[in-house]
């Protein structure tokens, strides 16, 4: 008994020693030299990773045959042994449908866009921890292009279509004047805008902290143009935001932990509402365009929709400011385009009000059905 207790104690002591030896060491301050070395190492690792990805991409480009599959002008490259007959058929159907959707946005230019480069398709299967294989498909542009899309299991035609449309949007972006792309902050929309996208734009417009967005909401077209970042401003902070908005801008970012004076100023701005301090802090950072990239993309999408099939071609050849180019694409004046955009945004405002008479009737019908069925069984 005594021997057993003694053995347990020695185990306990041994475990304690191991735990003490392996426990995390207390953090200590790092010198500038150490930080510089770590930063250089991280940068080197990042570069190595980037090079590896690039090398892998180039390897795939060389390895995959150039004529794996073609639907209209859209070309896919893959290893037939990797992709398999089933996915090949789905990919073909998805490609055909994606081309018809993109055709409604880009018109005849879609053939040229799709012919820009081919799409590399890679199928990967995972069995780890699964009863059966799980498919994943990666679609990427053969010339790099900066965009690839991963389709997770279950791989459906719809998901493949979405991936292909994203890549077509990327290909279409390369031809559009760079200042429009810079303003939009994303790729050219390759599918029609959904109600949800408009709804998000309506929420963004109504909930923006910028005074200019509220003026746009009230009906001013020039204010809408400014809120969308389409007009030149001399002083973005004072032209877009009211003093209360400066405070919100300051409260939306966190200063670095060791910037003690900034932390103190931020607290003074937010808690004591010191306008001058808020202004100074807000000016120390780039002033954001009041409406988000997603909201701006609704105007981009509307211009393409409004202009019909030749809209994209007109946009590619357009000159001037982003607003002028969008209006050229839409085939209407800039003010008409913005007015229509505002109307569409406000019309998509989500309804928090009571259900419509049709909805109410359906809900009452469901209630009555449930109540009627409940009485059919005796206890």
């Amino acid at each position, binding site marked *: 008994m005594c021997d057993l207790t003694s053995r347990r104690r020695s185990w306990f002591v041994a475990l304690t020693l191991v735990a003490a030896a392996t426990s995390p060491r207390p953090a200590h301050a790092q010198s500038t030299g150490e930080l510089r070395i770590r930063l250089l190492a991280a940068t080197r690792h990042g570069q190595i990773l980037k090079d590896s990805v690039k090398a892998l991409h180039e390897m795939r480009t060389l390895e995959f045959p150039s004529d794996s599959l073609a639907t209209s002008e859209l070309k896919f490259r893959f290893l037939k042994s990797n992709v398999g007959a089933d996915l090949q058929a789905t990919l073909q159907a998805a490609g055909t449908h994606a081309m018809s959707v993109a055709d409604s946005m880009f018109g005849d230019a879609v053939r040229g866009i799709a012919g820009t480069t081919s799409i590399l398709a890679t199928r990967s299967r995972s069995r780890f921890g699964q009863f059966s294989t799980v498919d994943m498909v990666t679609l990427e542009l053969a010339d790099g292009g900066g965009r690839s899309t991963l389709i997770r299991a279950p791989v459906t035609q719809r998901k493949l279509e979405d991936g292909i449309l994203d890549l077509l949007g990327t290909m279409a972006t390369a031809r559009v004047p760079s200042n429009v792309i810079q303003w939009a902050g994303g790729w050219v929309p390759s599918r029609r805008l959904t109600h949800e996208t408009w709804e998000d734009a309506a929420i963004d417009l109504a909930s923006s902290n910028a005074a200019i967005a509220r003026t746009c909401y009230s009906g001013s077209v020039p204010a809408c143009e400014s809120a969308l970042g389409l007009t030149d401003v001399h002083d973005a902070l004072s032209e877009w935001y009211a003093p*209360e*908005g400066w405070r919100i801008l300051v409260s939306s970012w966190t200063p670095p932990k060791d910037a003690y004076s900034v932390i103190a100023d931020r607290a003074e701005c937010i808690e004591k509402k010191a306008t001058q301090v808020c202004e100074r802090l807000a000016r120390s950072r780039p002033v954001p365009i009041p409406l988000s990239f997603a909201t701006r993309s609704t105007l981009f999408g509307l211009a393409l929709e409004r202009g019909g099939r030749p809209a994209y071609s007109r946009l590619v050849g357009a000159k001037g400011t982003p607003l002028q180019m969008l209006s050229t694409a839409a085939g209407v004046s800039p003010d008409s385009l913005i007015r229509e955009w505002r109307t569409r945004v406000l019309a998509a*405002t989500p309804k*928090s009000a*009571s259900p419509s008479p049709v*909805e*109410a009737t359906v809900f*009452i019908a469901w209630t009555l059905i*449930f109540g009627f069925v409940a009485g*059919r069984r005796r206890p």
Partner: protein
Amino acid sequence: MFGQVLYTQWKWARTELFLYVLAAFLVPTVIIRIGYSQVDAYSISNVLGVMGFAGAFFGVLALVCAFGLAWRPYIIDASLRHVGPLSLPVPWATFVRLRFLAGATLLLIPTIAVLLGGVIATATSVVPATLHAYPGGVAIRFLFASLIAYSAGFLLQYVAGKHAVRVAIGLFFLVIAVELAVTLLGYESMVLRVWNVFTTWPGPFSIFNARWMLIDV
């Protein structure tokens, strides 16, 4: 006959109804007061966040009210082996419908509390210029949502009888098991599809999927 059934259910449910009314009346104001003290009323996205939280409360309250009113009468009847209802000079189906109607009528009480609570909460808060108050809309949504949940709970209770809890738990585990199997086999989620059928228009529970915002765009 309906008056008697309604009176009986009122007697059984008045304590919990009082609690529901208190919650429906006070909680929106309290949430908005606390929420507004934490956020800047000028920051509209924060205001919408607070309203979303208050909206979730209304959804939960609708479920609690509904299931409470649907299950309690059956449990009391079952404890007496349904002697009372079965000895009445009306068929069982007629009696069940009267019970159903009486419970649905009682749901008007928390609905009125939601309306009054919403009116007071929004009248005493700062509503930013681009937002609007919807106390009436939320109250009507609350009424429909609680009616749907009440009728579903009532259906489960009166069809499954004394096994209702077991059936509900069994269904829950069945759904988990099916979902697990389908996920492991790499197929598309069936549960998600069924869930979408029930919770998107014109599904019965799509009312819960709507925006329950006292103050909204």
